[in-house]
């Protein structure tokens, strides 16, 4: 049989990519508990200390709870954590089903933003 791996792994440089497979931190789960999370949905953590944190939470869950103290979009959570959106959806599902975050869905796709909002966007873009 081959030798036991030594302490030095020359192949483990930056080019090797992440050393933890993305879905390892979700225990292999690819579907979030409790439905999907639209990229444009907002999530927000409950009041700090308001709920007992289950011991099963991963470090990534704690990071999400820290950055969702103010409402933040699902896309932005994934970007800040530098994790794939699919992984973040699973982690958010855990927190949602544990009652630790609330989710605010975007308006229905068929519902266009009203005039007031479109005008605010044009004005905001002009002012950039």
């Amino acid at each position, binding site marked *: 049989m081959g030798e036991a791996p030594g302490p030095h792994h020359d192949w483990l440089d930056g080019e090797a990519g992440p050393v933890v497979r993305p879905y390892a931190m979700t225990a292999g789960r690819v579907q979030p508990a409790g439905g999907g999370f639209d990229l444009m949905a907002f999530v927000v953590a409950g009041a700090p200390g308001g709920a007992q944190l289950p011991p099963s939470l991963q470090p990534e869950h704690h990071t999400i709870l820290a950055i969702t103290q103010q*409402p933040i979009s699902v896309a932005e959570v994934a*970007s800040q954590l530098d994790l*794939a959106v699919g992984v973040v959806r699973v982690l958010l599902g855990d927190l949602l089903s544990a009652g630790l975050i609330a*989710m605010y869905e975007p*308006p229905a*796709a068929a519902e*266009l933003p009203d005039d007031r*909002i479109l005008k605010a966007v044009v004005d905001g873009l002009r002012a950039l």
Partner: protein
Amino acid sequence: MDSVRSDTDPAGRRVPLALKILVAGGFGAGKTTMVGAVSEIRPLQTEEVLTAASVDTDDISGVEAKSTTTVAMDFGRITINDEVLVYLFGTPGQDRFWFLWDELAYGALGAVVLADTRRLADCFPSVDYFERRGTPFVVGVNCFDGAQRYSPESVRAALDLDPDVPVLLCDARERESGKQLLIALVEHVAQRRGDPVPAAAP
């Protein structure tokens, strides 16, 4: 279901409205440049199941268990005010990631299609896609250094666009140029709906 829509959560924290605008076009048409010129840009990783279309291109012999691939998109944010955010998503440049677009296009306000006149055909798939979906879009003709300049009208004819689709010359490196494309898109969205956005007060 504890998903509700309101402007503030029970603790009084304001939940903004996020609008999604896609930036599409062929590979190298200036999508990343434009998103970076008008917004704070960060990468966004999505992990998607490999489809038959990509099996031909990704050599998965020996790693047959691999069924997902990571795709990085350009992701930018423009803060309009404390109620409204605009997110820009640079669509993946390769056709084989078309399956990402359906989720991206769902609920999008509209799209900016960047055209490179040296390879105009590269933006055909984007134009086709948004026309088929009925997603409002504008076309930005990116004027690269040294590229022969074409008039917006000749690009409109070459792309066989509907007469109401705005076509603008642009320079994706310039913030001002990107702003004009986004403003044209929002005005186009309002016009399609029949309520032109009033001009800004002077």
